[in-house]
């Protein structure tokens, strides 16, 4: 019998320390990549800003899909709610960019609350369909309320005031990009804390086994709902960033297509790591941009081929692939 006395200390090296080190390195890498993008492609900043806005949405999607195990094809409802909230506020005289981001976050969080309340009533495929139905309802609502949203013509005439009263959102898009990058890094760091908090661990547990979590004495619904709200706030910030940098909000921001694309980007990058969300977004949108510039007419085939190739070569997503290559790996990607 070799039961070890309770007083004996744990011998394994501290997990947490290494984890923090990796996360700091990861964040630095994101900042470096972002700045590299700024120097390498000074002429593509509008595209890169769009990538950041979508990356925020895909990050927020990872919270739901990757950390809670709830598949959704309606995430654009949250993104769009943020975009329209910020857009409508901006048209009505609230033009300070940071305030608009906050408004977007609140709008997205509110939408997340509604979406979570409904979606958490079902599981599996029916749940997926609930998400589709919700995003379609949001889309319809935005189309119908054209007095506020501009309907299918889009909500135009957004004139965000300069950031801190100095930096204008102009043609070259430097302000928008750097603003977006800072926002992304900030959100990323916060989310890293969220997913490694007790709450984040609880979500991971719920993803694997809800019965077990209940037997630990935790209610599942409020935890998931809370994650929906957080996810909504992040997606809403993405929407607000898109609204500020584009100065137009269109119905596409609450569409099924955007939702489906976001899910594709996430799965492409790998679930449940947050890094995967960023990698997936950059690869997908970058690839799409490059092939559609080369051949604006028939690029879709190439994107399709990319997705197939990724499934064949790296079934756990691209970050799963890097995990496999560098066996040390971060938190596990995919399922």
């Amino acid at each position, binding site marked *: 019998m070799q039961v070890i006395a309770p007083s004996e200390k744990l011998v394994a090296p501290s997990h947490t320390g290494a984890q923090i080190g990796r996360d700091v390195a990861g964040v630095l890498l994101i900042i470096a990549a972002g700045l590299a993008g700024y120097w390498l492609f000074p002429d593509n900043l509008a595209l890169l800003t769009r990538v950041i806005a979508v990356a925020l949405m895909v990050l927020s999607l990872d919270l739901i899909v990757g950390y809670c195990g709830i598949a959704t094809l309606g995430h654009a409802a949250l993104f769009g709610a943020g975009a329209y909230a910020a857009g409508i506020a901006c048209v009505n005289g609230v033009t300070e960019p940071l305030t608009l981001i906050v408004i977007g976050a609140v709008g997205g969080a509110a939408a997340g609350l509604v979406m979570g309340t409904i979606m958490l009533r079902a599981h599996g495929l029916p749940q997926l369909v609930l998400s589709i139905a919700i995003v379609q309802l949001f889309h319809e609502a935005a189309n119908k309320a054209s007095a506020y949203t501009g309907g299918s013509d889009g909500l135009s005439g957004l004139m965000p005031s300069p950031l801190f009263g100095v930096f204008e959102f102009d043609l070259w898009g430097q302000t928008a990009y750097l603003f977006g990058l800072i926002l992304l890094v900030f959100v990323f760091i916060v989310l890293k804390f969220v997913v490694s908090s007790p709450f984040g661990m609880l979500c*991971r547990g719920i993803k694997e086994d809800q019965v077990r979590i209940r*037997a630990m004495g935790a209610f599942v619904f409020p935890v998931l709902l809370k994650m929906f709200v957080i996810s909504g706030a992040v997606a809403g910030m993405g929407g607000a960033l898109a609204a500020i940098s584009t100065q137009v909000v269109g119905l596409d921001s609450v569409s099924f297509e955007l939702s489906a694309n976001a899910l594709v980007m996430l799965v492409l990058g790998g679930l449940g790591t947050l890094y995967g969300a960023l990698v997936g977004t950059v690869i997908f949108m970058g690839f799409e941009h490059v092939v559609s510039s080369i051949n604006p007419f028939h690029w879709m085939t190439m994107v399709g081929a990319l997705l197939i190739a990724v499934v064949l070569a790296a079934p756990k997503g691209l970050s799963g692939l890097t995990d496999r290559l560098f066996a040390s790996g971060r938190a596990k990607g995919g399922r």
Partner: protein
Amino acid sequence: MSELFRVEGLTKSFGGLAVSRNISLAMPAGERLALIGPNGAGKTTFVNLVTGQIKPSAGRVVLNGDDVTDLGAVRRVRKGLVRTFQVTRLFSDMTPEEHVTLTVLQREGRASRILSRFTGDSTVADEVHGLLGALGLVEVARRKVGEIAYGQQRLLEIAIALALKPKVLLLDEPAAGVPSSETPRIEQALERLPPSLAVLMIEHDMDLVFRFAKRVVVLAAGEIIFEGLPFEVAANDKVREAYLGNYANARSVA
């Protein structure tokens, strides 16, 4: 009467089929009770009824004088009615340390906090290490659960349950599926359970039952057919009938 836990007339039918019939049972603090019965006797259904996974058709569950029949599974756990699972339900990506930490934090109502750290609280860490140590899981505390031995996973199930500081603990076949070389560790863990805890154990392994239980209840076809001391079980006609009616030999009661 210093009873801690009581079920009265617990009945459950699915359609016309009664899987639990009028089960009544009481346990004082410190009780060590074993619930045995042939396959299909309704033992797991009984655990599910008691812990609130399923709703009874009739009857009451009373804990510490409070009727908890209408409470859901989660609230019963919070009141101190805790179970383990027959087949381990653990998170294969997490370490034992993380499992127990999460459970302790949950017990203290801190598990759904966003603005707090998962590790780093020294009182929590000490408690976690104490529990893991008591169950001999320190060596594997930082390995992923998917990588540790099944016997250790069973022990972790018990550690999680204990981390909830239960008043009543239901152990659903704690030794099921564990290779015989590892059973002594389980046995030892059971011996070390806090004395004040009321424990109800469902088990097939009669050696374990005899060593552990002070009292035995036999369930057959959803009904209690015997209640008494361990050594009386084998001699009871009803029990023999229940088992022999089901099996060609009665080795498991022998």
